[in-house]
């Protein structure tokens, strides 16, 4: 009874009303956006993107959610702002003309202002109120409110007025963003604005590690709602701000049991003949020159042959180089590019930070909507980030791709020839299928062996297969298991030849034996024939005696009969005599 009651309560529990920001990823972290009708504080150091984030909130509100907004700037002039964000495709002038946006620059210059006696900030309130009412604004940004403190000296009045301002904003029912510079030490803002804004505080941060800068965002507090508490990297690029949740908050992905071929039939057969799961992640790792790129290209080719789209991110070779090289193994990728099924994106990993790479990948995927994605190789990403960063990036990428049901194939270079169980970028635990290509060195030559380290949710072969790259393409050959162990390459060929010779010899021996048997049979058969003849003559002999005996018997019998008849003749006469007597 109580359980049922609790359940009902949970269902009827109302979520805090939220205003979507329209900023990629931020709504996901905050579970829908900023608190509706309440002020939010965005704080951070100079140049961390506070103004841009708040401006994007206003612009997205005006363009996507039909919520007009007021942007009150204490720092930059309206036209400066407009030209600053024009590169992001935000046309502030047009939005202003459409009455979707109102920019108001509050100019505070200490040298122009003299303070005498008591005052309040009613003027600011009236301005703000007027701006809100004139366009029916639902969103307000005050950027950076702390400039008031540098312009005015009476802190007591300012603090009292700030408190009044936030009450005023709440009364107006607008969703507001207040930005503030990060203060020294542990305080979030220089003037302690966080005291006033108690509903939602977002902290932005800009760090440079190894000469590569990363911006990060953290929701410090968000009253009355659940939110992601991690630090999330974010990016500012030509489409504005994108926040990337490190991992999605839930692991509730759709899974598919559909299979897609790897493009190498003999490899498919190692996976029960059907290939990979659709939407799974595949890692191909191996030492240099083991054919990882070839496997990847083969997969790309197969995907495109099935009229599906494939994206190829190359971090090592240029697309032209890959195209040329793959032509040598009978893979014509150019035709897929011409058909628009295949797209190459080549960039040096050092071009920009990991996050930028990730976002670039996200964006291209969102636009191209491929069925499969190839990253070749992920090892190179290490040059721009630490192992843990690369791992977290790949987790996010895999998360994203699995959400979108996109199959992904990574290639990774393992530097040591000894196969280490823990590879590379530590992604081996993340991937669903792990193919290992390794060198098998013996008899003064190097050959490639391939085996499946793991493959979740499907039966797979445990065999080490030799893997050959020829001008016809890729294929797997059964590895010969000889008395000396695994035979590959020319040793395998030699073994094959030996076996062929063996077969010929055996066949010859067999034919010789066959002839021998034939001869023996003929001999025996002739023997049998003579014996038969002998037997027949003996039989005839025996029969003759038997017949003679019989004849003799017959004759004796007849003779006796005759004698008897003669005697009976007498009797006959006797009979006729007696008859006549009667």
């Amino acid at each position, binding site marked *: 009874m109580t359980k049922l009651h609790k359940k009902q309560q949970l269902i009827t529990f109302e979520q805090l009303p939220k205003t979507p920001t329209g900023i990629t990823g931020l709504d996901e972290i905050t579970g829908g956006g900023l608190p509706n009708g309440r002020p939010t504080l965005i704080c951070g150091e100079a140049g961390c993107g506070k103004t841009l984030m708040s401006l994007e909130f206003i612009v997205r509100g005006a363009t996507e959610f039909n919520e007009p907004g007021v942007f009150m700037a204490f720092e930059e002039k309206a036209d400066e702002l407009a030209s600053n964000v024009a590169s992001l495709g935000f046309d502030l002038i047009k939005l202003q003309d459409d009455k979707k946006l109102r920019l*108001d620059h*509050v*100019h*505070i210059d200490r040298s*122009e*202002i*003299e*303070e*005498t*006696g*008591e*005052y*309040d*900030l*009613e*003027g*600011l309130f*009236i*301005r703000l*109120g*007027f701006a809100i009412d004139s366009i029916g604004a639902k969103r307000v940004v005050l950027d950076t409110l702390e400039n*008031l403190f540098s312009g*005015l000296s009476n802190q007591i009045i300012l603090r009292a007025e700030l408190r009044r301002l936030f009450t005023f904003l709440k009364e107006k029912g607008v969703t507001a963003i207040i930005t503030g510079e990060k203060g020294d030490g542990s305080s979030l803002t220089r003037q302690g604005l966080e005291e006033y804004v108690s509903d939602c505080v977002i902290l932005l941060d800009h760090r440079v590690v190894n000469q590569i800068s990363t911006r990060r965002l953290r929701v410090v507090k968000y009253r009355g709602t659940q939110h992601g508490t991690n630090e999330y990297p974010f990016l500012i690029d030509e489409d504005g701000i994108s926040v990337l949740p490190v991992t999605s908050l839930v692991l509730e992905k759709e899974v598919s049991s559909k299979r897609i071929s790897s493009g190498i039939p003999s490899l498919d057969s190692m996976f029960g003949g059907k290939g990979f799961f659709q939407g799974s992640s595949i890692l191909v790792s191996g030492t240099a020159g083991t054919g990882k790129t070839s496997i990847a290209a083969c997969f790309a080719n197969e995907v495109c042959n099935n009229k599906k789209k494939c994206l190829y991110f190359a971090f090592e070779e240029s697309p032209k180089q890959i195209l040329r090289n793959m032509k040598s193994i009978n893979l014509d990728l150019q035709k897929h590019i011409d058909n628009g099924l295949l797209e190459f994106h080549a960039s040096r990993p050092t071009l920009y930070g990991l996050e930028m790479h990730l976002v670039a990948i996200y964006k291209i995927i969102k636009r191209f909507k491929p069925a499969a994605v190839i990253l070749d190789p992920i090892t190179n990403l290490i040059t721009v980030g630490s192992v843990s960063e690369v791992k977290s990036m790949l987790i996010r990428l895999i998360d994203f791709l699995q959400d979108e049901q996109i199959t992904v194939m990574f290639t990774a270079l393992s530097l040591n020839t000894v196969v280490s169980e823990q590879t590379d970028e530590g992604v081996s635990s993340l991937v669903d299928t792990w193919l290992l290509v390794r060198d098998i060195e013996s008899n003064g030559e190097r050959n490639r062996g391939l085996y499946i380290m793991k493959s979740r949710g499907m039966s797979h072969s445990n065999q080490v297969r030799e893997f050959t790259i020829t001008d016809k393409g890729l294929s797997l050959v059964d590895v010969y298991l000889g008395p000396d162990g695994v035979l590959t390459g020319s040793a395998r060929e030699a073994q094959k030849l030996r076996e062929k010779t063996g077969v010929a010899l055996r066949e010859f021996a067999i034919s010789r034996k066959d002839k021998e048997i034939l001869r023996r049979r003929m001999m025996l058969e002739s023997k049998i024939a003579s014996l038969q003849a002998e037997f027949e003559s003996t039989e005839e002999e025996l029969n003759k005696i038997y017949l003679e005996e019989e004849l003799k018997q017959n004759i004796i019998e007849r003779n006796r009969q005759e004698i008897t008849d003669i005697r009976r003749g007498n009797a006959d006469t006797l009979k006729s005599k007696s008859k006549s007597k009667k």
Partner: protein
Amino acid sequence: MELDEVIKYELRLYVAGKTAKSVTALTNLKKYCEEHLKGQYVIEVIDLLQQPQLAEGDQIFAIPTLVRKVPEPIRKIIGDLSNEEKVLVGLNIIPVSK
């Protein structure tokens, strides 16, 4: 012509309704002007509650604000103008007497 020469100071006082501070500011201002600028000034009182659109033009955020439009450069004094010396310095008024 004569009038133009005489009026050297154009002052604007921004208020929001008849609050105590506004009234004090206006009384103070009138007093100072009569004392120091007799016949050389005009005072325009703007009530932002009635004309909120005017607040942006003169960059008003505090109430009350006194703006010296003429002579240039524009000077602003915020507060109830209770400190005479500050107001006079702020408006760059050279006291007539004393």
